[in-house]
Protein backbone atom coordinates (compact mmCIF):
# COMPACT_ATOMS: atom_id res chain seq x y z
CA UNK A 1 0.00 0.00 0.00
CA UNK A 2 1.25 3.44 -0.93
CA UNK A 3 1.48 5.76 2.06
CA UNK A 4 0.72 9.38 1.13
CA UNK A 5 3.62 11.76 1.78
CA UNK A 6 3.63 13.41 5.18
CA UNK A 7 2.48 17.02 5.27
CA UNK A 8 3.61 19.80 7.54
CA UNK A 9 0.71 20.01 10.04
CA UNK A 10 1.04 23.76 10.58
CA UNK A 11 0.97 24.54 6.85
CA UNK A 12 -1.89 22.14 6.20
CA UNK A 13 -3.92 23.65 9.01
CA UNK A 14 -3.22 27.21 7.88
CA UNK A 15 -4.27 26.31 4.37
CA UNK A 16 -7.57 24.87 5.57
CA UNK A 17 -8.54 27.18 8.44
CA UNK A 18 -6.12 30.08 8.71
CA UNK A 19 -8.38 32.03 11.05
CA UNK A 20 -8.20 29.31 13.73
CA UNK A 21 -4.41 29.30 13.97
CA UNK A 22 -2.96 31.95 16.27
CA UNK A 23 0.66 30.95 16.33
CA UNK A 24 3.11 28.17 15.50
CA UNK A 25 6.11 27.54 17.75
CA UNK A 26 8.98 25.10 17.69
CA UNK A 27 11.14 24.25 20.67
CA UNK A 28 13.57 21.31 20.78
CA UNK A 29 12.00 19.84 17.63
CA UNK A 30 8.52 19.88 19.15
CA UNK A 31 5.91 21.73 17.14
CA UNK A 32 3.16 23.59 18.96
CA UNK A 33 0.19 24.96 17.07
CA UNK A 34 -1.75 27.55 19.04
CA UNK A 35 -5.41 27.66 18.08
CA UNK A 36 -8.57 29.45 19.14
CA UNK A 37 -10.39 27.55 21.91
CA UNK A 38 -13.71 27.46 20.07
CA UNK A 39 -12.10 25.76 17.07
CA UNK A 40 -10.36 22.93 18.96
CA UNK A 41 -12.67 20.01 17.99
CA UNK A 42 -12.65 21.12 14.36
CA UNK A 43 -8.86 21.36 14.32
CA UNK A 44 -8.43 17.96 15.98
CA UNK A 45 -10.88 16.44 13.53
CA UNK A 46 -8.90 17.84 10.63
CA UNK A 47 -5.58 16.64 12.05
CA UNK A 48 -6.94 13.16 12.65
CA UNK A 49 -8.71 12.59 9.35
CA UNK A 50 -6.59 14.36 6.73
CA UNK A 51 -4.33 12.56 4.31
CA UNK A 52 -0.71 13.13 5.14
CA UNK A 53 -1.43 14.00 8.79
CA UNK A 54 -3.42 11.16 10.46
CA UNK A 55 -2.82 12.10 14.09
CA UNK A 56 -4.88 9.14 15.23
CA UNK A 57 -3.69 8.81 18.82
CA UNK A 58 -4.32 11.23 21.66
CA UNK A 59 -1.46 10.87 24.10
CA UNK A 60 -2.41 13.42 26.68
CA UNK A 61 -4.32 16.55 27.57
CA UNK A 62 -2.28 18.80 29.83
CA UNK A 63 -3.73 21.95 31.34
CA UNK A 64 -1.33 24.70 32.48
CA UNK A 65 -1.95 27.67 34.75
CA UNK A 66 0.20 30.75 34.04
CA UNK A 67 -0.87 32.57 37.19
CA UNK A 68 0.17 35.26 38.12
CA UNK A 69 1.31 35.82 34.53
CA UNK A 70 -0.89 35.71 31.46
CA UNK A 71 -0.32 34.91 27.81
CA UNK A 72 -1.93 36.05 24.56
CA UNK A 73 -3.75 39.20 25.75
CA UNK A 74 -4.42 38.29 29.34
CA UNK A 75 -5.22 34.60 29.06
CA UNK A 76 -4.40 32.72 32.24
CA UNK A 77 -4.90 29.04 31.36
CA UNK A 78 -3.74 26.84 28.55
CA UNK A 79 -4.72 23.33 27.48
CA UNK A 80 -2.26 21.25 25.47
CA UNK A 81 -3.39 18.32 23.37
CA UNK A 82 -0.55 15.93 22.68
CA UNK A 83 -1.22 14.05 19.49
CA UNK A 84 0.69 11.23 17.91
CA UNK A 85 0.54 9.76 14.45
CA UNK A 86 1.25 6.04 14.26
CA UNK A 87 1.51 6.19 10.50
CA UNK A 88 4.15 8.94 10.31
CA UNK A 89 5.62 8.34 13.76
CA UNK A 90 5.62 11.94 14.93
CA UNK A 91 4.12 14.02 17.67
CA UNK A 92 2.30 17.32 17.64
CA UNK A 93 1.07 19.66 20.34
CA UNK A 94 -2.12 21.62 19.80
CA UNK A 95 -2.45 24.32 22.40
CA UNK A 96 -5.20 26.71 23.26
CA UNK A 97 -5.18 29.61 25.72
CA UNK A 98 -8.16 30.52 27.90
CA UNK A 99 -9.31 33.54 29.87
CA UNK A 100 -9.63 33.28 33.62
CA UNK A 101 -13.29 34.32 33.77
CA UNK A 102 -14.39 31.84 31.11
CA UNK A 103 -12.09 28.82 30.89
CA UNK A 104 -14.21 26.88 28.43
CA UNK A 105 -13.18 24.65 25.55
CA UNK A 106 -15.51 22.46 23.50
CA UNK A 107 -14.93 18.82 24.32
CA UNK A 108 -12.71 16.60 22.21
CA UNK A 109 -14.49 13.38 23.23
CA UNK A 110 -16.24 13.22 19.86
CA UNK A 111 -12.88 13.05 18.11
CA UNK A 112 -10.93 10.98 20.63
CA UNK A 113 -12.86 8.87 23.18
CA UNK A 114 -9.65 8.85 25.24
CA UNK A 115 -10.26 12.54 25.97
CA UNK A 116 -13.12 11.60 28.29
CA UNK A 117 -11.16 11.03 31.48
CA UNK A 118 -8.33 13.38 30.54
CA UNK A 119 -10.84 16.22 30.31
CA UNK A 120 -12.52 15.16 33.53
CA UNK A 121 -9.16 15.35 35.26
CA UNK A 122 -8.40 18.76 33.77
CA UNK A 123 -11.80 19.94 34.94
CA UNK A 124 -11.26 18.53 38.41
CA UNK A 125 -7.70 19.70 39.01
CA UNK A 126 -7.56 22.92 37.00
CA UNK A 127 -11.17 24.01 36.71
CA UNK A 128 -11.31 24.00 32.91
CA UNK A 129 -14.83 23.53 31.56
CA UNK A 130 -15.26 21.29 28.57
CA UNK A 131 -18.58 22.18 27.02
CA UNK A 132 -20.50 19.25 25.61
CA UNK A 133 -18.60 16.66 27.68
CA UNK A 134 -20.92 13.72 28.40
CA UNK A 135 -19.94 13.22 32.05
CA UNK A 136 -17.99 16.12 33.54
CA UNK A 137 -17.85 14.97 37.17
CA UNK A 138 -14.84 15.26 39.43
CA UNK A 139 -12.43 12.40 38.92
CA UNK A 140 -9.55 12.35 41.40
CA UNK A 141 -10.81 14.63 44.17
CA UNK A 142 -13.92 13.85 46.27
CA UNK A 143 -17.27 15.01 44.88
CA UNK A 144 -17.69 17.69 47.56
CA UNK A 145 -14.24 19.22 47.18
CA UNK A 146 -14.00 22.97 46.77
CA UNK A 147 -11.40 24.52 44.53
CA UNK A 148 -9.06 23.14 41.91
CA UNK A 149 -5.79 21.90 43.40
CA UNK A 150 -3.54 22.29 40.37
CA UNK A 151 -4.20 26.02 40.03
CA UNK A 152 -1.14 27.99 40.95
CA UNK A 153 -3.01 30.08 43.52
CA UNK A 154 -4.24 27.00 45.36
CA UNK A 155 -2.08 26.55 48.47
CA UNK A 156 0.10 23.47 48.58
CA UNK A 157 0.07 22.94 52.31
CA UNK A 158 -2.77 23.14 54.73
CA UNK A 159 -1.43 23.82 58.22
CA UNK A 160 -0.14 27.30 58.97
CA UNK A 161 2.97 27.37 61.13
CA UNK A 162 2.00 28.36 64.65
CA UNK A 163 3.65 31.45 66.15
CA UNK A 164 2.68 33.34 69.28
CA UNK A 165 0.92 36.03 67.26
CA UNK A 166 -1.36 33.65 65.38
CA UNK A 167 -1.64 30.71 67.80
CA UNK A 168 -5.03 31.78 69.05
CA UNK A 169 -6.45 32.18 65.60
CA UNK A 170 -5.18 28.79 64.46
CA UNK A 171 -6.50 27.04 67.55
CA UNK A 172 -9.90 28.51 66.83
CA UNK A 173 -10.08 26.99 63.35
CA UNK A 174 -8.08 23.82 63.76
CA UNK A 175 -10.28 20.74 63.63
CA UNK A 176 -9.31 18.82 66.76
CA UNK A 177 -11.34 17.64 69.71
CA UNK A 178 -12.29 20.44 72.07
CA UNK A 179 -14.10 20.38 75.37
Amino acid at each position, binding site marked *: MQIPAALNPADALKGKMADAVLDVKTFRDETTIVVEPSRVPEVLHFLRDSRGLVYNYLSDISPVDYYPETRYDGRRFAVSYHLYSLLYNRRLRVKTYLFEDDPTVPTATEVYP*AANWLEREAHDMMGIDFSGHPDLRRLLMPDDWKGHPHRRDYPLGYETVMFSFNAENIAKHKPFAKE
Partner: protein
Amino acid sequence: MTMMTHPGAEATSSWEGNIEELRNLVSDRALSGETLLLNMGPHHPSTHGVLRVLLELDGEEIVTCLPDVGYLHTGIEKNIESKTYEKGVTLTDRMDYLAPMSNNAVFSMAVEKLAGLDVPERAQVIRVICLELTRLNSHLVWLGTHALDLGAMSVFLYAFREREVILDMFEMLSGQRMMTSYIRPGGVWRDLTPEFLPALEDFLGYFPARVSDYESLLTNNPIFKDRTQGIGIVEPEDALAWGMSGPCLRGSGVNWDIRKAMPYSGYEQYDFDVPLGEHGDVYDRYLVRIEEMRQSVRILKQAIKRLESAGGGFRSDNRKFVPPPRAELGRSMEAVIHHFKLWTEGYTLPDEEVYVGIESPRGEIGCYLHGTGGNKPRRVRFKTPSFMHISSLGMVSQGHMIADLVAIIGSIDIVLGDSDR
Protein backbone atom coordinates in the same frame (compact mmCIF):
# COMPACT_ATOMS: atom_id res chain seq x y z
CA MET B 1 -16.63 17.00 69.16
CA THR B 2 -15.73 18.64 65.89
CA MET B 3 -15.83 16.35 62.92
CA MET B 4 -12.58 15.83 61.06
CA THR B 5 -12.93 16.89 57.48
CA HIS B 6 -10.41 17.27 54.74
CA PRO B 7 -9.48 20.81 53.82
CA GLY B 8 -11.64 22.34 51.16
CA ALA B 9 -14.46 19.90 51.65
CA GLU B 10 -17.81 20.92 52.96
CA ALA B 11 -18.62 19.28 56.25
CA THR B 12 -21.29 16.97 55.03
CA SER B 13 -22.42 14.27 57.41
CA SER B 14 -22.37 11.39 54.95
CA TRP B 15 -23.07 10.68 51.33
CA GLU B 16 -26.74 9.95 51.02
CA GLY B 17 -26.78 7.44 48.21
CA ASN B 18 -29.02 9.19 45.76
CA ILE B 19 -29.87 7.10 42.75
CA GLU B 20 -30.77 10.24 40.76
CA GLU B 21 -27.09 11.18 40.65
CA LEU B 22 -26.51 8.14 38.49
CA ARG B 23 -29.08 9.08 35.88
CA ASN B 24 -27.56 8.94 32.36
CA LEU B 25 -24.61 7.00 33.75
CA VAL B 26 -26.42 3.71 34.29
CA SER B 27 -29.35 2.37 32.29
CA ASP B 28 -32.91 3.27 33.23
CA ARG B 29 -33.48 -0.28 34.36
CA ALA B 30 -31.19 0.37 37.33
CA LEU B 31 -33.29 3.33 38.43
CA SER B 32 -36.39 1.18 38.56
CA GLY B 33 -34.55 -1.54 40.42
CA GLU B 34 -34.69 -4.10 37.65
CA THR B 35 -30.93 -4.44 37.54
CA LEU B 36 -28.60 -4.53 40.51
CA LEU B 37 -26.09 -1.84 41.37
CA LEU B 38 -23.05 -3.25 43.10
CA ASN B 39 -19.85 -1.67 44.35
CA MET B 40 -16.75 -3.69 43.66
CA GLY B 41 -13.91 -2.21 45.66
CA PRO B 42 -12.25 0.08 46.63
CA HIS B 43 -11.07 -2.70 48.92
CA HIS B 44 -11.27 -5.85 46.89
CA PRO B 45 -8.41 -8.27 46.36
CA SER B 46 -8.76 -8.40 42.60
CA THR B 47 -8.85 -4.64 42.01
CA HIS B 48 -5.07 -4.50 42.60
CA GLY B 49 -5.14 -1.58 44.98
CA VAL B 50 -7.91 0.87 45.57
CA LEU B 51 -9.97 0.84 42.41
CA ARG B 52 -13.70 1.14 42.88
CA VAL B 53 -15.95 -0.13 40.14
CA LEU B 54 -19.65 0.56 40.22
CA LEU B 55 -21.33 -2.27 38.40
CA GLU B 56 -24.81 -2.50 37.02
CA LEU B 57 -25.61 -6.17 36.84
CA ASP B 58 -28.29 -8.10 35.08
CA GLY B 59 -27.85 -11.38 36.89
CA GLU B 60 -24.17 -12.12 36.39
CA GLU B 61 -23.86 -9.99 33.29
CA ILE B 62 -22.34 -6.53 33.36
CA VAL B 63 -24.64 -3.92 31.84
CA THR B 64 -22.62 -0.87 32.86
CA CYS B 65 -19.22 -0.61 34.46
CA LEU B 66 -18.25 2.74 35.96
CA PRO B 67 -14.68 2.79 37.26
CA ASP B 68 -13.92 5.34 39.96
CA VAL B 69 -10.35 6.35 40.75
CA GLY B 70 -8.74 8.92 42.99
CA TYR B 71 -8.45 6.95 46.23
CA LEU B 72 -4.68 6.99 45.90
CA HIS B 73 -4.32 10.59 44.74
CA THR B 74 -1.27 12.03 46.45
CA GLY B 75 -0.77 15.32 44.61
CA ILE B 76 2.61 14.36 43.20
CA GLU B 77 2.34 16.72 40.24
CA LYS B 78 1.43 19.61 42.50
CA ASN B 79 4.24 18.78 44.90
CA ILE B 80 6.91 18.73 42.21
CA GLU B 81 5.90 22.27 41.25
CA SER B 82 7.21 23.49 44.60
CA LYS B 83 10.53 21.66 44.38
CA THR B 84 13.65 22.16 42.33
CA TYR B 85 13.96 19.85 39.33
CA GLU B 86 16.48 17.54 40.96
CA LYS B 87 14.27 16.94 43.98
CA GLY B 88 11.27 16.04 41.87
CA VAL B 89 12.81 12.69 41.00
CA THR B 90 12.17 11.19 44.43
CA LEU B 91 8.45 11.83 44.09
CA THR B 92 8.17 10.12 40.73
CA ASP B 93 9.09 6.75 42.29
CA ARG B 94 5.87 6.82 44.20
CA MET B 95 3.58 6.95 41.19
CA ASP B 96 3.95 3.61 39.52
CA TYR B 97 5.50 1.77 42.42
CA LEU B 98 6.04 -1.38 40.37
CA ALA B 99 8.10 0.46 37.76
CA PRO B 100 9.95 3.20 39.65
CA MET B 101 12.82 3.28 37.15
CA SER B 102 10.50 4.12 34.25
CA ASN B 103 9.07 7.05 36.19
CA ASN B 104 12.54 8.29 37.14
CA ALA B 105 13.62 7.96 33.55
CA VAL B 106 10.71 9.81 31.97
CA PHE B 107 11.01 12.72 34.38
CA SER B 108 14.78 12.89 34.02
CA MET B 109 14.50 12.78 30.25
CA ALA B 110 11.97 15.60 30.26
CA VAL B 111 14.31 17.72 32.41
CA GLU B 112 17.23 16.85 30.12
CA LYS B 113 15.25 17.81 27.06
CA LEU B 114 14.21 21.13 28.58
CA ALA B 115 17.78 21.82 29.68
CA GLY B 116 19.42 20.52 26.52
CA LEU B 117 21.59 18.23 28.63
CA ASP B 118 23.41 15.27 27.08
CA VAL B 119 23.72 11.91 28.78
CA PRO B 120 26.96 9.90 28.39
CA GLU B 121 26.80 6.55 26.68
CA ARG B 122 27.61 4.50 29.75
CA ALA B 123 24.79 6.15 31.68
CA GLN B 124 22.41 5.32 28.84
CA VAL B 125 23.38 1.65 28.92
CA ILE B 126 22.90 1.58 32.69
CA ARG B 127 19.50 3.16 32.15
CA VAL B 128 18.53 0.48 29.65
CA ILE B 129 19.54 -2.19 32.18
CA CYS B 130 17.41 -0.50 34.83
CA LEU B 131 14.44 -0.02 32.54
CA GLU B 132 14.44 -3.63 31.41
CA LEU B 133 14.87 -4.94 34.95
CA THR B 134 11.95 -2.80 36.03
CA ARG B 135 9.94 -4.26 33.17
CA LEU B 136 10.70 -7.76 34.40
CA ASN B 137 9.88 -6.71 37.94
CA SER B 138 6.53 -5.27 36.91
CA HIS B 139 5.61 -8.15 34.60
CA LEU B 140 6.40 -10.66 37.34
CA VAL B 141 4.03 -8.95 39.76
CA TRP B 142 1.44 -8.76 37.02
CA LEU B 143 1.87 -12.45 36.18
CA GLY B 144 1.63 -13.53 39.79
CA THR B 145 -1.41 -11.47 40.68
CA HIS B 146 -3.18 -12.11 37.40
CA ALA B 147 -2.80 -15.85 37.84
CA LEU B 148 -3.81 -15.55 41.49
CA ASP B 149 -7.01 -13.76 40.47
CA LEU B 150 -7.81 -16.65 38.18
CA GLY B 151 -7.16 -19.24 40.85
CA ALA B 152 -3.58 -20.32 40.14
CA MET B 153 -1.87 -19.77 43.46
CA SER B 154 1.51 -21.31 42.81
CA VAL B 155 2.45 -18.99 39.93
CA PHE B 156 2.27 -16.10 42.36
CA LEU B 157 4.79 -17.71 44.68
CA TYR B 158 7.20 -18.53 41.83
CA ALA B 159 6.92 -15.06 40.27
CA PHE B 160 7.60 -13.34 43.57
CA ARG B 161 10.61 -15.56 44.17
CA GLU B 162 12.25 -14.12 41.03
CA ARG B 163 11.02 -10.62 41.70
CA GLU B 164 12.78 -10.72 45.04
CA VAL B 165 16.09 -11.20 43.25
CA ILE B 166 15.40 -8.17 41.05
CA LEU B 167 14.55 -6.06 44.08
CA ASP B 168 17.81 -7.14 45.67
CA MET B 169 19.61 -5.96 42.55
CA PHE B 170 17.84 -2.60 42.79
CA GLU B 171 19.08 -2.40 46.35
CA MET B 172 22.63 -3.02 45.17
CA LEU B 173 22.28 -0.14 42.73
CA SER B 174 20.40 2.44 44.68
CA GLY B 175 20.25 1.29 48.28
CA GLN B 176 16.49 0.94 47.98
CA ARG B 177 14.36 -1.97 46.84
CA MET B 178 11.37 -0.10 45.47
CA MET B 179 11.73 3.68 45.72
CA THR B 180 14.97 3.74 43.82
CA SER B 181 15.38 7.38 42.62
CA TYR B 182 18.37 5.97 40.80
CA ILE B 183 17.94 7.56 37.38
CA ARG B 184 18.54 11.29 37.73
CA PRO B 185 18.74 14.19 35.27
CA GLY B 186 22.11 13.86 33.54
CA GLY B 187 22.63 10.15 34.10
CA VAL B 188 22.24 7.91 37.13
CA TRP B 189 22.96 8.47 40.80
CA ARG B 190 26.12 6.37 41.07
CA ASP B 191 28.05 3.83 39.07
CA LEU B 192 27.19 0.14 39.11
CA THR B 193 28.35 -1.47 42.33
CA PRO B 194 30.85 -4.39 42.06
CA GLU B 195 28.32 -7.00 43.18
CA PHE B 196 25.64 -5.90 40.72
CA LEU B 197 26.89 -7.32 37.42
CA PRO B 198 27.66 -10.83 38.77
CA ALA B 199 24.20 -10.89 40.33
CA LEU B 200 22.61 -9.80 37.06
CA GLU B 201 24.52 -12.37 35.02
CA ASP B 202 23.58 -15.10 37.44
CA PHE B 203 19.93 -14.05 37.24
CA LEU B 204 19.93 -13.97 33.43
CA GLY B 205 21.40 -17.47 33.46
CA TYR B 206 18.42 -19.11 35.09
CA PHE B 207 15.57 -16.69 34.40
CA PRO B 208 14.61 -17.81 30.84
CA ALA B 209 14.05 -21.34 32.13
CA ARG B 210 11.85 -19.92 34.88
CA VAL B 211 9.70 -18.12 32.28
CA SER B 212 9.18 -21.48 30.60
CA ASP B 213 8.18 -22.86 33.98
CA TYR B 214 5.48 -20.22 34.35
CA GLU B 215 4.29 -20.95 30.86
CA SER B 216 4.07 -24.67 31.58
CA LEU B 217 1.69 -23.81 34.40
CA LEU B 218 -0.58 -21.49 32.43
CA THR B 219 -0.23 -21.37 28.65
CA ASN B 220 -1.83 -24.74 27.94
CA ASN B 221 -3.78 -24.96 31.15
CA PRO B 222 -7.42 -25.63 30.08
CA ILE B 223 -8.89 -23.72 33.04
CA PHE B 224 -6.69 -20.69 32.38
CA LYS B 225 -7.55 -20.79 28.68
CA ASP B 226 -11.25 -21.04 29.42
CA ARG B 227 -11.07 -18.02 31.66
CA THR B 228 -9.04 -15.88 29.26
CA GLN B 229 -9.62 -16.78 25.62
CA GLY B 230 -12.28 -14.66 23.95
CA ILE B 231 -12.64 -12.53 27.09
CA GLY B 232 -12.19 -8.77 27.06
CA ILE B 233 -11.62 -8.46 23.34
CA VAL B 234 -10.38 -5.03 22.28
CA GLU B 235 -10.47 -4.19 18.60
CA PRO B 236 -7.35 -2.36 17.38
CA GLU B 237 -9.36 0.74 16.43
CA ASP B 238 -10.95 0.88 19.88
CA ALA B 239 -7.62 0.41 21.58
CA LEU B 240 -6.18 3.38 19.72
CA ALA B 241 -9.22 5.56 20.15
CA TRP B 242 -9.27 4.94 23.91
CA GLY B 243 -5.60 5.78 24.24
CA MET B 244 -4.39 2.31 25.17
CA SER B 245 -0.70 1.63 24.84
CA GLY B 246 1.92 -0.94 25.69
CA PRO B 247 1.07 -4.64 25.91
CA CYS B 248 -2.68 -3.89 25.87
CA LEU B 249 -2.38 -2.18 22.49
CA ARG B 250 0.03 -4.78 21.14
CA GLY B 251 -2.23 -7.57 22.35
CA SER B 252 -4.74 -6.21 19.83
CA GLY B 253 -2.13 -6.43 17.09
CA VAL B 254 -1.14 -2.76 16.82
CA ASN B 255 2.59 -2.54 16.44
CA TRP B 256 3.55 0.48 18.52
CA ASP B 257 6.43 0.19 20.90
CA ILE B 258 8.11 3.51 21.70
CA ARG B 259 11.43 1.71 22.16
CA LYS B 260 11.26 0.93 18.43
CA ALA B 261 9.23 3.86 17.11
CA MET B 262 11.04 6.71 18.87
CA PRO B 263 14.13 5.14 20.40
CA TYR B 264 15.58 6.73 23.51
CA SER B 265 18.63 5.82 25.65
CA GLY B 266 20.10 4.07 22.63
CA TYR B 267 17.37 1.43 22.22
CA GLU B 268 17.92 1.56 18.46
CA GLN B 269 21.23 -0.27 18.95
CA TYR B 270 19.64 -3.30 20.58
CA ASP B 271 18.28 -6.27 18.76
CA PHE B 272 14.87 -7.33 20.04
CA ASP B 273 11.42 -8.22 18.77
CA VAL B 274 8.08 -6.68 19.58
CA PRO B 275 5.56 -9.45 20.24
CA LEU B 276 2.06 -8.88 18.91
CA GLY B 277 -1.26 -10.51 19.72
CA GLU B 278 -3.93 -11.45 17.21
CA HIS B 279 -7.27 -11.52 18.98
CA GLY B 280 -6.90 -8.72 21.51
CA ASP B 281 -8.28 -10.82 24.33
CA VAL B 282 -6.99 -11.45 27.84
CA TYR B 283 -5.04 -14.50 26.68
CA ASP B 284 -3.19 -12.61 23.94
CA ARG B 285 -2.22 -9.86 26.34
CA TYR B 286 -0.86 -12.60 28.58
CA LEU B 287 1.18 -14.07 25.71
CA VAL B 288 2.53 -10.65 24.75
CA ARG B 289 3.79 -9.95 28.26
CA ILE B 290 5.36 -13.37 28.63
CA GLU B 291 7.23 -12.88 25.36
CA GLU B 292 8.25 -9.37 26.43
CA MET B 293 9.99 -10.90 29.43
CA ARG B 294 12.09 -13.07 27.10
CA GLN B 295 12.89 -10.05 24.94
CA SER B 296 13.92 -8.08 28.01
CA VAL B 297 16.41 -10.82 28.83
CA ARG B 298 17.80 -10.48 25.30
CA ILE B 299 18.19 -6.72 25.74
CA LEU B 300 19.82 -7.14 29.13
CA LYS B 301 22.38 -9.59 27.75
CA GLN B 302 23.28 -7.15 24.97
CA ALA B 303 23.46 -4.29 27.45
CA ILE B 304 25.99 -6.12 29.60
CA LYS B 305 28.18 -6.53 26.53
CA ARG B 306 27.79 -2.90 25.55
CA LEU B 307 28.79 -1.82 29.02
CA GLU B 308 32.40 -2.88 28.35
CA SER B 309 32.77 -0.56 25.38
CA ALA B 310 30.43 2.28 26.37
CA GLY B 311 32.34 5.50 26.95
CA GLY B 312 31.76 8.36 29.32
CA GLY B 313 30.87 8.31 32.96
CA PHE B 314 27.73 7.23 34.71
CA ARG B 315 26.51 10.84 34.63
CA SER B 316 27.13 14.00 32.71
CA ASP B 317 30.15 16.21 33.43
CA ASN B 318 28.09 19.36 33.07
CA ARG B 319 28.48 20.81 36.57
CA LYS B 320 25.71 23.33 36.02
CA PHE B 321 23.22 20.48 36.21
CA VAL B 322 24.96 17.51 37.79
CA PRO B 323 26.65 17.60 41.21
CA PRO B 324 30.44 17.07 41.37
CA PRO B 325 31.88 13.86 42.82
CA ARG B 326 32.12 13.92 46.58
CA ALA B 327 35.92 13.51 46.47
CA GLU B 328 36.36 16.78 44.63
CA LEU B 329 34.74 18.84 47.34
CA GLY B 330 37.86 18.72 49.51
CA ARG B 331 40.15 19.96 46.71
CA SER B 332 38.24 22.24 44.42
CA MET B 333 36.54 25.51 45.29
CA GLU B 334 34.47 25.33 42.09
CA ALA B 335 33.18 21.94 43.16
CA VAL B 336 32.08 23.36 46.51
CA ILE B 337 30.30 26.22 44.78
CA HIS B 338 28.57 23.91 42.31
CA HIS B 339 27.59 21.51 45.04
CA PHE B 340 26.16 24.31 47.16
CA LYS B 341 24.30 25.93 44.28
CA LEU B 342 22.83 22.67 43.03
CA TRP B 343 21.53 21.53 46.40
CA THR B 344 20.15 24.89 47.47
CA GLU B 345 18.99 26.84 44.45
CA GLY B 346 19.06 24.11 41.84
CA TYR B 347 19.30 25.11 38.20
CA THR B 348 17.09 27.32 36.10
CA LEU B 349 15.35 26.03 33.01
CA PRO B 350 13.69 28.07 30.24
CA ASP B 351 10.05 29.09 30.20
CA GLU B 352 9.23 26.51 27.56
CA GLU B 353 7.43 23.21 27.38
CA VAL B 354 8.47 19.69 26.40
CA TYR B 355 6.75 16.33 26.23
CA VAL B 356 8.61 13.06 26.52
CA GLY B 357 7.01 9.65 26.22
CA ILE B 358 8.74 6.35 26.94
CA GLU B 359 7.67 2.74 27.06
CA SER B 360 6.95 1.74 30.64
CA PRO B 361 5.98 -1.87 31.41
CA ARG B 362 2.34 -0.83 31.19
CA GLY B 363 2.51 1.38 28.11
CA GLU B 364 3.32 4.94 27.21
CA ILE B 365 4.25 7.00 30.24
CA GLY B 366 4.60 10.63 29.28
CA CYS B 367 5.94 13.64 31.10
CA TYR B 368 4.86 17.13 30.14
CA LEU B 369 7.19 19.66 31.70
CA HIS B 370 6.74 23.42 31.54
CA GLY B 371 9.50 25.59 32.98
CA THR B 372 9.20 29.10 34.35
CA GLY B 373 12.65 30.44 33.61
CA GLY B 374 13.33 29.86 37.31
CA ASN B 375 14.48 26.90 39.35
CA LYS B 376 11.08 25.25 39.75
CA PRO B 377 8.71 23.94 37.11
CA ARG B 378 5.47 25.70 36.31
CA ARG B 379 3.72 22.49 35.52
CA VAL B 380 4.62 18.82 35.62
CA ARG B 381 2.11 16.41 34.27
CA PHE B 382 2.37 12.69 33.85
CA LYS B 383 0.39 10.83 31.26
CA THR B 384 0.12 7.41 32.78
CA PRO B 385 -0.91 4.21 31.03
CA SER B 386 -3.00 2.85 33.92
CA PHE B 387 -5.16 5.98 33.84
CA MET B 388 -6.00 5.48 30.18
CA HIS B 389 -6.56 1.77 30.61
CA ILE B 390 -8.95 2.17 33.53
CA SER B 391 -10.90 4.78 31.58
CA SER B 392 -11.48 2.17 28.89
CA LEU B 393 -12.52 -0.51 31.37
CA GLY B 394 -16.22 0.23 30.88
CA MET B 395 -15.88 -0.25 27.14
CA VAL B 396 -13.90 -3.50 27.46
CA SER B 397 -16.00 -5.20 30.11
CA GLN B 398 -19.47 -4.51 28.79
CA GLY B 399 -21.53 -7.64 28.32
CA HIS B 400 -19.13 -9.88 30.20
CA MET B 401 -19.74 -11.87 33.36
CA ILE B 402 -18.64 -10.36 36.64
CA ALA B 403 -15.99 -13.06 37.04
CA ASP B 404 -14.55 -12.05 33.66
CA LEU B 405 -14.12 -8.50 34.91
CA VAL B 406 -11.56 -9.87 37.34
CA ALA B 407 -9.65 -11.39 34.43
CA ILE B 408 -9.91 -8.16 32.44
CA ILE B 409 -8.68 -5.96 35.28
CA GLY B 410 -5.77 -8.33 35.72
CA SER B 411 -4.94 -8.35 32.03
CA ILE B 412 -4.84 -4.57 31.57
CA ASP B 413 -2.30 -4.51 34.41
CA ILE B 414 -3.31 -1.48 36.40
CA VAL B 415 -1.40 0.18 39.19
CA LEU B 416 -3.53 2.66 41.06
CA GLY B 417 -0.60 4.78 42.13
CA ASP B 418 0.16 5.16 38.46
CA SER B 419 -3.39 6.15 37.67
CA ASP B 420 -4.06 8.57 40.54
CA ARG B 421 -0.63 10.13 41.03
